[in-house]
């Protein structure tokens, strides 16, 4: 019998005891020759398969226990690491199993396996066995592995006889000299879960080891301090900080370890830095304190973002300046760095130190202070005024004078028109990638323009786009695809079907791909099939509302193509993101006039709302030259700011949309006879809804989240706002009324269902009158910052970006969005809201008072922490320009007026900023109601000082 058969026999007969003698007698070459047999045996016996019984599922092997052992031994001795790792039973690597084998069959990869591959199953090798294996030369463990194993050393505690005294049995630690001499110190060099070690109190163990001189105490303190600069996890660093505290290091000991102490200052972990600073504070008074070395490290501390670190450092500097007169100039210069902080306490502490020890004649010091002049708070500036007088101060720039409002129609935002069929092909292939929000409209424009020209070759070029459209529709759900992209895919598929109907001989490829996908789609229940005609497009009941206008546009565009209408769409944007150059618009309109064709109602109304109305002279002249009749009347009205609509009009819905686009605030009496104007509540048209705040609680799992509903109408009329009601108003009108854009914006839609890729597209419907659409989207901000959904952050970011791009004046809804945005939980949204305010002030489009009023009201219901606003103001809104500072003062004053009489957390910071602004703007508190509010707040101890300061400013003291 050859060795292969013998092995098979041993396995089949489960002769556990026979395997070791069998393998032992084989040469290395013979063992290797067994690999092919083992491969088969492994497959048969060791492969795992799933077993399901009732509700439980588990993995099993065909091998019984002895067979599993036999094959593990064979794999260990004969095969490579990969095979062994694949079939290894986790409990095979054990002292009991391996001792009989290692002496003659230890594979080369044994070390690799237990150190690396077995990373997550190290329990098989304990510290003691690891040392034995190393001593016997089987493995060479690396230091990291040893550090992990040291944690397993047994060290049972016992009571020491006195109450609360626990001692440890260090027998295992002293068993080998190397354990305490070398191995235990690896715990300070490599990351281990020592801080999780619930079985052993390692802090107590180290304290005891040092106390009884098992290990060197100085070395222990030194390495403990050293860990602060290792790239360990914060929890682990904090554990070492606890160890340092537990060691109760004396001042004498610390004086010998000053270098190590100072190195902790470079640690990114503020807890470690703070503890060491506390220790250094005590040392600073000692003669042996190395002040020069300390000063070397101080720049890091003064730049720290942790206030307590900066404050403690300044305190130590003060002590040193007092003690070492010769070091005072250097210390003052170093202390200047603390002036970069905007915290009043830090600035004052640094300024006092400089004033106390600084020399007015010291040019370098004055220059150094000068660097920070822009950053100095009012009180600090006063304190250091003598130093500042000695330097030429840089003039602050008032940027508002240099700010130029940019035109809507510019060269840099021009959207290249689709000139050739190839342009259309490349647009179609990227339109579903959501690269640009306006691709929806551009693709529709391209479809109208190029539909009549198709042939077989051109269809082939469009096939990648069709492939993508089908893929989007057939994918049940994708987190990256917006609902409007899904709608666009449906429109494009229907466009393909139109082409098939018109050019059957050229469209084989479309027919093929459609049939292929239809076959797939037919496998699903009728109700959830994806390949439906556009009229039946829906993704989910609540989504359909906000997509309604786009869907209607798609339907009408396809109808136009079907009727071979190839005049260009009026609503296709010419400039980013959704603007239409009025000159191009007049040209487009002229084409319709020449061919005596009526534009699509929806297309015409969207186009009017996208018309750029800032520079209109050339377009007006062109209109007068080329247009006649109602088109000319319409353009004369749109392109002249003071023009009024004529009393006799034919297209009522169109004129209504035109007036809303031109000036949503103004009610033109000439149109009073229109039902839209005399029957419909105006806020559905101009978006100026009433709003109020209320606190809601939502439940998610067992946690309670605070959330807020900003409702655009009182609750009893909630349904009115949500669409039902609007339909009610429209019931008053004629049934066969023409299409009116605003009628279809309202429905059951809820802002919370917007996909982030749809936000800008939706707002792009009415760039001249975005308020009604903003009102719908405000739901997104309702949850303030407490909702932890990433998708929501992206949506709100898009909303803020759209607000920034908005050219129309900010009105009520925009103000709510900006005010609430400053409280949002992500800093990016906060900063975008702040930028919208900055831009609004530059362009005089925002009422800072209204923003403040909304924010004040938001604080009364605990909408979000006030700190978010105060931090944002300090970092992004303060000192932008003198005009901004005045606007900011106005914002804060209105905020204060609307806050509750009981001060909330961080009111002090808000008042600090207010105090600073009053001083900077050289103004006084005018409003008596503010004084009334400040009087209420004065009761609070923390606010007393700053309110006192404000009073002083008012008295010009």
């Amino acid at each position, binding site marked *: 019998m050859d060795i292969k058969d013998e092995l098979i026999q041993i396995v089949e007969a489960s002769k556990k005891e026979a395997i070791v003698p069998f393998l032992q007698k084989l040469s290395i070459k013979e063992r290797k020759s067994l690999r092919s047999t083992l491969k088969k045996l492994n497959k048969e016996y060791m492969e795992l398969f799933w077993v399901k019984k009732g509700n439980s599922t588990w993995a099993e092997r065909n091998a019984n226990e002895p067979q599993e052992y036999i094959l593990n031994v064979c794999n260990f001795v004969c095969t490579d690491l990969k095979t062994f790792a694949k079939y290894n039973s986790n409990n095979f690597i054990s002292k009991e199993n391996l001792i009989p084998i290692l002496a003659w069959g230890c594979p080369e990869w044994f070390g690799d396996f237990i150190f690396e591959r077995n*990373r997550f199953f190290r329990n098989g090798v304990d510290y003691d066995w690891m040392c034995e294996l190393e001593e016997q030369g089987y493995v*060479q463990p690396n230091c990291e592995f040893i550090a992990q194993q040291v944690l397993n050393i047994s060290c049972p505690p016992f009571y020491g006889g006195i109450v609360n005294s626990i001692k440890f049995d260090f027998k295992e630690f002293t068993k080998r000299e190397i354990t305490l001499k070398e191995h235990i110190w690896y715990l300070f*060099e*490599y990351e281990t879960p020592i801080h999780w070690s619930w079985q052993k109190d390692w802090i107590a163990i180290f304290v005891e080891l040092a106390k009884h001189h098992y290990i060197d105490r100085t070395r222990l303190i030194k390495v403990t301090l*050293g860990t602060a*600069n*290792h*790239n360990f996890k914060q929890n682990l660093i904090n554990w070492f900080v606890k160890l340092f505290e537990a060691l109760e290091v004396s001042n004498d000991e610390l004086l010998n370890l000053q*270098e*190590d102490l100072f*190195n902790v200052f*470079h640690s*990114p972990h503020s807890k470690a830095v703070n503890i060491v600073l506390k220790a250094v504070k005590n040392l600073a008074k000692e003669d042996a304190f190395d002040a020069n070395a300390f000063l*070397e490290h101080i*720049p*890091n501390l*003064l*730049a720290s*973002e942790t206030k307590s670190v900066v404050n403690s450092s300044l305190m130590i500097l003060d002590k040193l300046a007092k003690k070492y007169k010769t070091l005072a100039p250097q210390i003052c210069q170093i202390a200047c*760095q603390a002036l*970069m902080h905007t915290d009043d306490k830090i600035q004052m502490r640094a300024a006092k130190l400089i004033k106390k020890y600084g020399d007015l004649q010291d040019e370098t010091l004055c220059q150094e202070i000068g*660097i*920070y002049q*822009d*950053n100095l708070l009012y009180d600090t500036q006063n304190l250091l005024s003598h130093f500042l007088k000695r330097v030429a101060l*840089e003039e*602050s*720039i008032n*940027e508002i004078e240099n700010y130029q409002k940019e035109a809507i129609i510019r060269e840099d935002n021009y959207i290249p028109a689709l000139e050739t069929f*190839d342009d259309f*092909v*490349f647009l179609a*292939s*990227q339109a579903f*990638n959501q*690269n640009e929000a306006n691709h929806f409209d551009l693709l529709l424009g391209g479809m109208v323009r190029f539909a009549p020209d198709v042939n077989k070759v051109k269809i*082939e*070029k469009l*096939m*990648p*786009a069709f*492939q*993508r459209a089908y893929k989007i529709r057939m994918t049940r759900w994708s987190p990256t695809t917006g609902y409007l992209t899904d709608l666009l895919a449906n429109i494009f598929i229907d466009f393909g079907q139109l082409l098939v109907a018109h050019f059957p001989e050229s469209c084989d490829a479309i027919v093929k*791909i459609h049939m292929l996908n239809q076959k797939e789609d037919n496998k699903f229940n009728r109700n959830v099939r994806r390949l439906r005609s556009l009229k039946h497009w829906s993704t989910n009941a609540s989504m359909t509302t906000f997509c309604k206008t786009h869907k209607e546009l798609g339907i009408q565009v396809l109808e136009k193509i079907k009727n071979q209408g190839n005049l260009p769409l009026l609503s296709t944007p010419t400039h980013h993101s959704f603007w239409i150059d009025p000159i191009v618009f007049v040209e487009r309109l002229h084409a319709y006039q020449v061919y005596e064709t009526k534009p699509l109602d929806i297309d015409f109304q969207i186009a009017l709302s996208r018309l750029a109305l800032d520079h209109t002279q050339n377009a007006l002249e062109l209109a007068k030259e080329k247009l006649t009749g109602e088109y000319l009347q319409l353009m004369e009205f749109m392109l002249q700011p003071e023009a009024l609509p004529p009393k006799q009009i034919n297209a009522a819905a169109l004129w209504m949309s035109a007036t809303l686009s031109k000036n949503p605030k103004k009610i033109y009496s000439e149109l009073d006879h229109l039902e839209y104007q005399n029957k419909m509540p105006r806020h559905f048209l101009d978006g100026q809804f009433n709003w109020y705040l209320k606190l809601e609680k939502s439940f998610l799992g067992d946690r309670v989240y605070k959330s807020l509903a900003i409702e655009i109408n009182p609750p009893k009329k909630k349904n009115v706002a949500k669409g039902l009601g609007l339909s009610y108003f429209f019931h008053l009108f004629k049934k066969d009324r023409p299409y009116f854009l605003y009628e279809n914006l309202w429905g059951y839609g809820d802002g919370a269902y917007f996909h982030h890729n749809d936000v800008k597209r939706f707002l792009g419907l009415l760039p001249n009158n975005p308020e009604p659409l903003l009102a719908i989207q405000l739901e997104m901000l309702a949850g303030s910052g407490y909702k932890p959904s990433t998708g929501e952050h*992206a949506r709100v*970011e898009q909303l803020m*970006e759209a607000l*920034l791009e908005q050219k129309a004046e900010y009105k009520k809804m925009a103000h709510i969005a900006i005010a609430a945005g400053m409280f949002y939980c*992500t*800093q*990016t949204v906060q*900063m*975008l809201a702040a*930028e919208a305010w900055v*831009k609004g002030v530059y362009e005089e489009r925002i009422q800072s008072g209204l923003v403040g009023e909304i924010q004040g009201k938001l604080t009364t219901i605990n909408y979000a922490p006030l700190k978010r606003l105060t931090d944002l103001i300090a*970092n*992004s809104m303060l*000192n*932008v*320009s003198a005009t901004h500072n005045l606007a900011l003062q106005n914002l804060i004053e209105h905020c204060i007026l609307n806050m509750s009489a009981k001060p909330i957390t961080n009111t002090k910071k808000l008042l600090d900023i207010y105090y600073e602004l009053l001083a900077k703007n050289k103004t006084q508190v005018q409003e008596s109601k503010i004084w009334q509010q400040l009087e209420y707040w004065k009761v609070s101890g923390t606010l007393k000082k700053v309110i006192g300061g404000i009073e002083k400013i008012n008295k010009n003291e």
Partner: protein
Amino acid sequence: MSDTITYQYTSSSQIQSVDGGSDALFLSKYNESKPDAAPCFFWGNLKQPYLISRCLITLSNVVQSSFNMSPFQIAMLKDPIVTAGNERIRFEGFSHCAGVYARVDVLPDGHDGEFLQSGTTNVDFNPPMIAALGNVRKQESLVLSVGKKEVSISNEGKKVVERKVPLPTKWIKGLTTVQLYLADSTPAFTLNKMQTIQLFRSIPKGKIKADYFLIKRGNKWVFTPVKQRSGICIGGLHRLRLLEPLLPLAERLQVFAHPKNQSTTWQLYFGDLRFSLSLSRESWRGFSGEGAALEALVEDVPIKWIESFDHYAYANQAFNPSLLAIEENLSLQESQNLSAQLSAMGLLGYDLDDNEFFYRRLPFKLKRIMSLNPRLKNAEKLLEQGKVEIIDKTARRIEAKVAGTGVHHTVVIEGDRQRCTCTWFSKNQGERGVCKHILAVKKLVRN
């Protein structure tokens, strides 16, 4: 080819006390392509030991960081590489995700030592050595030794320190690609120490997904999420926090920007020492996948030139493609292709201050480096399978049809403008290098 790389160091890098009371930073080195290279590249004093220690610690932080991988993927540390020669010592490294590139340059006046031989090598960065670097003080003298000066020491029969890590393909490819981004970058802004610290303090907390723009508002530098034409765009802004520990020590910060916003480089100056950190366009995009060199690689540059360059050049020697073009009578395009080719082979680095390439041969086997352009290989595969058909070819316009999965893609090349209907191109619009279809068409047309 093995999917792991084994660094074999003769011993661990460490800081030892040497005669005269000073410390010596001994860096153990390993070069898999030239294991028998000179035992020691540099030996001598560093003039700013404290600062260089801080810079090396920051470099090790970069090397250990990752901005788009799970902790499981980043289990193993990759070692930085050092180039010594031409009076300069440069330490280079990448984050695991290959989206952050860092380099420490010790300039000629920053050291006082001898270059025993020039060359590039991996150096062992281990936690105890990094911890020891933290203890280096300003007044201390520090000797740097890249490799062992005394050959006998390394031959004392000590055990070899082996570290197996998964082959860092992203790393190697990043090192070959980032240079091309640096070469296109230009100086944008200079900030003093106070401005730099204030600016970095305004970095929002946590992981930042949105793009931010660096602008100057009034007298203050700020990051804003609003797109600004005058500003430079930074994706994955949080990655800049890696520089924070060095800011209080630096004299100034110089920001370099890529003209198409594909990367930014943040260079800190400490006298004769520089630390630069380059960020890729987004935190989830490494320099490795950007395909910057792809178009240049389509061109065939005579292997002879590359070989002779590799043979005669020495580490850190400046390489000027324009000068080469004049000397060798090459067209400018050819010389640019040559620098892209050399860079893709791991033979060039780029110095933004000197505005020129420098020679350094990556310490990895060349065949590893050359196997790293899958898009180019896929393009070649398309050609081999005859999937590319030229439809129209004039002096101004090339149109081709390339077979894809289930459809034919249209490729149109008009001068500098090239377009394809495939998903990759539709999504990225050429921002991340051209797709395999365009590459295949270009290669076919040129051949």
